[in-house]
């Protein structure tokens, strides 16, 4: 068994988990939802082993380093963070149905990593610039934040779906009535953004420290840095609008989605559309 095979199994588990959560959403059968959760948890476990395995494989090749150093590895890690954060939330807040909207992210990113021909899945040695412990701190902190923001974006989406149908004031239970109360979704969105903001801040800071250790400038306005601060601003706006202007509901839901679009662009868009220091993603 090697790490790629384990990631293959993870991918299938996440796909099935998505399907079961969707079935829970459509048919509201509790057992189906429980299977969805088991699949997600099982996938996460196998993925964790896979990440450990890839780490071990790199040592066997004599170029040992944490598996967080190229686009392939970061996509796997993003998928892992999203699944982990979601399961944590499901267990803590008993909000199972949300999995129908979050697990697709975990699935798509691992599937994209495995199948896109733009992405190289080889374990390669680290060029001198990447030989730093700050790299690991930077990637881990950023991606915990990204995972949380993916969940927050999904929550925003769910909120808008449900709010849209509730406005029509149909007395009959609709497809969306099985989703949590709007108030709860709203609260979860806020909590998730707060958590993500903390980690994004830490991610930007560790990145700045690393840049200063490697190049002698903690901030050079390269496109990836700039997009990360844009993302940070979007969430700062969201927090202030809520905390000091009492925004909530649809507006915050939209901001959660816009925020995730900014995250997505920071992570992917910059690598594929713009150029800069962080070009490892294009390999």
């Amino acid at each position: 068994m090697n790490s790629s095979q384990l990631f293959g199994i993870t991918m299938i588990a996440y796909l099935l988990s998505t399907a079961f959560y969707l079935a829970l959403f459509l048919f509201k059968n509790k057992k189906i939802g429980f299977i969805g959760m088991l699949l997600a948890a099982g996938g996460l476990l196998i993925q964790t082993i896979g990440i450990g395995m890839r780490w071990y494989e790199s040592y066997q090749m004599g170029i040992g380093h944490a598996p967080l150093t190229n686009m392939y590895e970061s996509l796997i890690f993003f998928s892992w963070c999203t699944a982990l954060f979601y399961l944590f939330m499901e267990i803590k807040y008993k909000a199972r149905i949300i999995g129908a909207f979050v697990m697709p992210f975990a699935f798509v990113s691992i599937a994209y990593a495995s199948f896109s021909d733009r992405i190289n899945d080889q374990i390669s040695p680290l060029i001198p610039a990447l030989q730093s412990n700050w790299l690991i701190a930077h990637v881990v902190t950023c991606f915990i934040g990204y995972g949380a923001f993916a969940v927050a974006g999904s929550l925003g989406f769910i909120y808008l779906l449900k709010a849209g149908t509730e406005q029509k004031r149909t007395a009959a239970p609709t497809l969306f009535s099985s989703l949590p109360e709007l108030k709860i979704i709203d609260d979860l969105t806020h909590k998730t953004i707060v958590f993500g903001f903390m980690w994004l801040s830490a991610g930007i800071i560790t990145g700045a420290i690393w840049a200063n250790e490697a190049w002698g400038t903690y901030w050079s306005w390269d496109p990836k840095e700039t997009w990360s601060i844009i993302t940070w601003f979007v969430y700062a706006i969201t927090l202030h609008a809520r905390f000091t202007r009492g925004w909530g509901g649809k507006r915050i839901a939209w901001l959660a989605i816009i925020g995730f679009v900014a995250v997505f662009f920071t992570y992917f868009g910059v690598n594929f559309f713009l150029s800069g220091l962080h070009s490892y993603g294009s390999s």
Partner: protein
Amino acid sequence: MTKSTKNPILAFFSSVQLALFLLFVLAATSIIGTIIPQNSPASFYAKQYGPQMARFFELLKLTDMYNSWWFLLLLLLFAINLIVCSIDRIPQVIRIIKKDNLAISPERLQKMSLSSSFTWHTTIEMSVDRVHAILTNERWKTTQRDNEQGTLFFAEKGPWTRFGVYVVHISILIILLGAVIGSSMIAKKVLHKPSFAFKGSVMIPETRESEVIYSFKSGQPIDLGFTVRCDFFDIEYYSNGMPKTYLSKVTVLENDQEILSTDIEVNAPLTYKGVTFYQSSYQPYQDFVVSLQNNRTNKQIKRVVPPAKQLEWQEGGISFGIINQEAKGKVTQRVKVWLTDNQGDPSTFWVNMGQEAMIERPSGTYTFNAKQLYATGLQVTKDPGVWLVYWGCILMLVGLYIAFFMSHRKLFVFIQQKGKNTEIIVAGNTNKNKIGFEKTFNRLATRFEATDE
């Protein structure tokens, strides 16, 4: 908050609307600089976007927008907004914290969002002792006051956490201040002292030294105040040909005294007297660094030798030169050496770069070693503000943690006589994490209820 007494200018600068507006404008305009390449030569923009667009870019400084007057002005407004807002609000926070919580009336307690009351079948003195015991046991530090109706206990946790938000805001100001202090632009244009803060680079060939570095923006030399010598430069490769290590061995000298010798690698810079040297590039030369040793006398020389040129080592009585070489691209693999001690036929031999050759001569054995001459490219910066930036970052994370995850919780217990019994009113509130505090409160209330046998 007494809005009416406020100066309108202050009101404007302390408003959160302005903060939201500035954050939005900063985010939106920042995008421009990620689309238009920054700091390219003027000809690039003319070619890429046409002369008219290029002039427009120049007018709005879009080609170096993060240093443009309007972007810096936005940042300045942002900083003023933060300062005024904090000055405006911190006194209110202090007032909230200093409030006399024991002056509250029992009626108000009953109206708090968390409030319950019980009857204890015991004397008031007993009740006071019990309440004190329970609260102390639950680690609430209490104060108490008797009034005509009964006894009021008050306890609170984390009043200082109300400052968390301001810790975050102040940390942003500290980071901005650090950035200003470390700015080479300000060192040059405002302080007229480029050596105060700079970013630049220098190329030093092996065995050579430099007392200056060259500023990135202007190309002007900047005096270091000491000397750096490059002793050795090396690149190591992985088996697949990717570079593994770039390494420079350097020596710092002051007044011709060697102060320290150390290695510089990518991610492992050298800092000396506030100036930091980063491994950033290199350049191979045509010349060679040769060391030659007479093994009998142990005398040794190290020379930079151009190809096809005869050199003399007077003291050792040796003449030598490099007469041929084999290279892959710009990287020399091995050289052919000609060497004589003027006794008998000269020796000629091939030697691989960096390896030693032993040569038997009538006058003794010699050890010969040649390596291609490289120059190391060092990026050199002096940033006297960076420690402020780092402290600001730490402060920001601490502040965010306090602001998001800690709260100011208050607990009130009022005890009053009701006939032969006592009535206990427990009430509490918090500024954040209402759900978490509700759990604590309910557990406590249950304990109060259960205490009466």
